């Protein structure tokens, strides 16, 4: 059975107002998640009330600073520290700021745009033989450094 799910895109400046509105309506904060897009980040703020699932979606550029919602929902600090450490998104005014030590990772911000896997070049069919190069100049350039190194 498919659960009805609402996703509401909002501007990052309207986030605090929208979250405060949901808090006033009695919504429970379920989670904050983040997805890396090609050149931006997509943050999902999920809420629930009587099994009604609602998401606020904010799209942020890599330089953007997001306002913390921990002033409204105190449990948000965990998710915000997680997003800061794994994605490298700056979040201001967190109620508890671990300053990048919440997750101990071997590489910094493993989920950031910089660490997004690049698309691989299309595979070449195996049976295609490499054509010998007829460019004598190129061959000479390749061979010359080898000779130099032997000397």
């Amino acid at each position, binding site marked *: 059975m498919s659960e009805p*799910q609402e996703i509401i895109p909002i501007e990052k400046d309207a986030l605090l107002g929208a979250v405060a509105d949901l808090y006033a309506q009695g919504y429970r904060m379920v989670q904050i998640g983040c997805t*890396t897009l090609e050149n931006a980040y997509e943050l999902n703020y999920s809420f629930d009330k009587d099994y009604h699932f609602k998401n606020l979606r904010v799209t942020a550029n890599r330089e953007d600073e997001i306002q913390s919602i921990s002033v409204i929902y105190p*449990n948000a*600090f965990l998710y915000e520290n997680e997003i800061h450490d794994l994605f490298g998104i700056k979040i201001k005014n967190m109620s508890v700021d671990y300053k990048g030590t919440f997750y101990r990772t071997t590489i910094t911000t493993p989920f950031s745009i910089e660490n997004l896997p690049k698309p691989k070049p299309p595979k070449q069919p195996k049976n295609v033989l490499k054509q010998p190069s007829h460019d004598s100049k190129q061959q000479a350039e390749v061979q010359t450094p080898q000779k130099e190194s032997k000397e």
Partner: protein
Amino acid sequence: MARTNIIPFGPQHPVLPEPIHFDLITEDEKVVDAIPSISFVHRGLEKLVEKRDFIDYAYVADRICGLCSFMHSMGYCQAVEEIMGLEVPERCTYLRVIWAELGRLHSHIFWLGVAADAFGFESLFMQALRVRERVLDIIEVTTGGRVIFGMNKVGGVKRDMSDETLKTMAKQLISMEKDLHELTDVFINDYSIKHRLVGVGYISREDAYRLGCVGPMLRASGHASDMRKIGYAAYKNLDLEPMVETAGDCYARCLVRIREIFQSIDLIRQAAGKIPEGPFDVNVKGTPDGEYFSRIEQPRGEVIHYVKANGTKYLQRFRVRTPTFSNIPAMIIALKGSQVADVPNIILTLDPCISCTER
């Protein structure tokens, strides 16, 4: 004047099977604040979707945690099936309910044992694990594994259960119920257990909701919230009411889990009685393109499996929000004002699963 100290609790501690750390700020013997630290064994399984295709990833999702193994792969498969518009056969939904409840059963019984061990009640710990062994035997007969089920796949399940297996399982559960009553009566009535748990680690109804508690922690503080009521898999066809207590203390959380053990047995019996004939999987064609938040009820509470796909065989994003992660802020509230000697019991009655949290 009280003397302020900082006591490091964990990541290695006799009552903690997995690593989590708290800096306990104390005034004499009283805890006035607690600062949690995680990420001692973080595995980065969410990142692995970049290297494993969406079919293979069900295998990884199964291994996010041992105790909640089946429900992780179930949540993941449900999300992918939803995105692809796959309608799994009804028999599959019942089989998933049976295995999910067997998972809840062995997880809760295991928790009773670990909790008994923390009280210093070792014979009760052994008794609990003896009963749990019988659940593991059923899991082994039906799946081939004892902890990791490995039964879910995108489009259904990998194995069926014969009518004879279902009947035998129902019989075994009847005899197990007797043993479980003997075991749980001790937890409910024993003077020393009540003395350690009643009124300890209190979380108010308002705090439990405001701090995003889930599962038995939320229900023990008076909220009738159980994701199985959404009606995923075959739960929509079964009689189910959330188990609720109102005291909000360690004892209430213990009672909720005990009642859920018997509820799981009842749900398995209901599912075994109603399971229809037919296929248990469907063929999967194409690749997923879209997003979905799958919400299911694990032994420790609501878990979210978020899947975002872009039409290729590799998912764009897979995120798991585990129940323990959601319960950490309430742990801090429960620890504040408690005695240092009660800290292990409080942390245990929250049933932290660090393996899930460090996915």
